[in-house]
């Protein structure tokens, strides 16, 4: 197994599109699950969807949770406060860039610390 990745976004489409990208770089070896949008399918975040997505991605090797914006961060944090687990890590990273970096590194079989810091280091990458 490898470290799983949970994408928490205000938009179901955004999360699903990013998951497709991650599958392309990481193949099927990395579990990528999504919590996109609110309970009723609109824009927003859902405590229940986040909790379920973390459950699905969980493996013995741990999970990194990547939130897109404000309330994704807060709701994910509320979920983790309620269900604390040292193998589930909320990560501060640019959403798309951090997720791609995490997926690439997770696919190599790297451990939770390594995957989490690869996502965080994406803040320091530049594109042009």
């Amino acid at each position, binding site marked *: 197994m490898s470290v799983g990745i949970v994408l928490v976004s205000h938009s179901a489409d955004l999360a699903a599109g990013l998951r497709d990208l991650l599958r392309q770089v990481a193949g099927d070896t990395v579990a990528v699950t999504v919590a996109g*949008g609110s*309970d009723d399918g609109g824009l927003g975040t*859902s*405590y229940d969807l986040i909790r379920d997505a973390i459950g699905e991605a969980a493996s013995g090797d741990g999970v990194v949770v990547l939130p897109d914006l*404000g*309330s994704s961060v*807060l709701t994910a944090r509320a979920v983790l406060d309620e269900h604390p687990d040292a193998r589930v890590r909320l990560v501060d990273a640019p959403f798309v860039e951090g997720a791609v970096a995490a997926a690439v590194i997770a696919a190599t079989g790297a451990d939770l610390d390594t995957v989490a810091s690869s996502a965080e280091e994406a803040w320091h990458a530049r594109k042009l």
Partner: protein
Amino acid sequence: MDVALARAWLDAAADALAARTEELTSLDAAIGDSDHGVNMNRGFGAVRTALAGASPAGPGAVFTLAGTTLVSKVGGASGPLYGSAFRALGKALPEGAEVDAAAFGAGLRAGLDALVKLGGAAPGDKTIVDAYAPAVDAYDAALREHGGDGDGGLAAAARAAAGAAAEGMRATVPLQARKGRASYLGERSIGHQDPGATSTWLIFQALADAAAT
């Protein structure tokens, strides 16, 4: 504070937030994403529904259920923030059918602490904290000054809290937002009243109203 007052407070809050939905949304339109009224109305509506189907033994259980409902039913930042605050309030209250005004005040402060721990906002960041923190301080001060257990003391303290929340809310106008979506606006967030501080005032006003009757 007993179960009846706890229920009456949340009911009054739900009414006020329903009545002010458009006002809150238009405040959020100026410096956010135009959903704060809808978020709060949905959340407190869901709290009303959840409480209608439950038989909590004490006020602590009422607030814990309300908090859990807010965390999971509001799609915006205000959901986990108010939800954590109400959950912490509920968990901080001693067991039993009734708690005194001092214990309730300590619970309100536990709620503030949880909200700050979750959201990381400091006073002056133009958030819920700018109404909530002075409200709790005023509640404590009123209780210290006028003393009194029972609902007489609580009613006066709640009135003081609502007044301080209103003042804190108005004081957010000249502030620059440093947390939440409004912070993207930088200096351009100055001159607008914070939506979350406004809903906090409505919630404390609902407490004062419920405790007065």
